[in-house]
């Protein structure tokens, strides 16, 4: 099943965060817990992990983009056997 992963609210009240670095590649199969990207907001760097096993399909934001909470980050395929 194809899904779109959105920017999470990493801190209560946060409106957006800068997508600083992709830690995976398009087309890469990753396991739950793999660090997918890093953001920085208010001098705090956070590594965000995959919540389930997935294949990263396509990035929808580039490194350096400021992405609103709930804004699209990447497409992925989940639920593969």
């Amino acid at each position, binding site marked *: 099943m194809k899904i779109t992963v959105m920017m999470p609210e*990493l*801190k209560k009240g*946060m409106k957006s965060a*800068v997508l600083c670095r992709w830690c995976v590649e398009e087309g890469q199969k990753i396991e739950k817990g793999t660090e997918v990207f890093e953001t*920085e907001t208010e*001098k*705090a*760097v956070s*590594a965000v992990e995959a919540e389930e096993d997935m294949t990263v399909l396509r990035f929808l934001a580039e490194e350096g983009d400021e992405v609103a909470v709930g804004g699209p980050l990447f497409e992925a395929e989940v639920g593969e056997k």
Partner: protein
Amino acid sequence: MIAVRVKSRDTAFDLGFEEYLFSLDTGDDFFVLWTDDPAVVVGRFQNVFRETDVPLALRRGVGVFRRITGGGAVWHGAGNLNYTFISDRTADGADGVRFTRPVADALRRLGVPAETDGSDVTVRGVKVSGSARASSAKRTIHHGTLLFDADLSALSLFTSSVVDGAFLKGGVPSRRTEAANIAPLLTAPVTFDEFASFIGESVAGTDTYLTEDDFDLAAALANREKYLSPGWTYGENPRFEFSGVLAAEEGTARISYRSRRGVVDSIESDGDLPIPTDALAGLKLSPGEIARTLAGAGVARRLAERVEEFLLTGK
């Protein structure tokens, strides 16, 4: 809380040691105090070339390093006390007040009317301590500077000579704010070591410290290599764009380039200055690399070094 007083003044080691403690899965809380020899330390996602005159720093024997936490460029050196908290990540992972409040409280016990917003500690609106954080899934590292008796003009020496306008976009910018030292604000004078001891006792609740010798030095030293490597300091540079006019004895040219992950993605030169841009496309942006490559492509050494300085600073 385990209190650690690091003896090393080597910035690369100290950053590596911090990261080693951050990686431990013991559930322990750490409070670390450390001081370095002169160095510029940029934030994780800063454009190191926009934030620091790297060629000047290296000529002056000042190290340039990239840390794993966010925020802007800071100066490490005599009179500056660095502190680090390492603990389990809370549900609200980006909350800095739980770390900066104990530091502000300690300063108030010394008669300094310190306040904090979770990032900076200020006295009457002037910063005496800045900080930054990084979080993994389980742990948070929060570190900061305490300007006890630091050279407040040192950082600007290496930041003001960069032509900021040449760096068009990319990288988290530093916020330049007014800063002050703590020593003149104290109601009774203390030495730097007495100040450090007081901060340690106030925050960690102990006057007993471990040192780096009490831990796995091999792991810390392995991390030290990371902080010394150009692949980390320059290779982890965020995407950015540059454009400026280079006027040299040999001619003038507007040179524009784009960089991603520390490499020249594309470069153009327009003018009468003979720059072999083909030789620079795909090149790592690292001090020495550009001049060497240009010299290898037949450019006279002096011009090669001039072009390198321009591409790294805009000067």
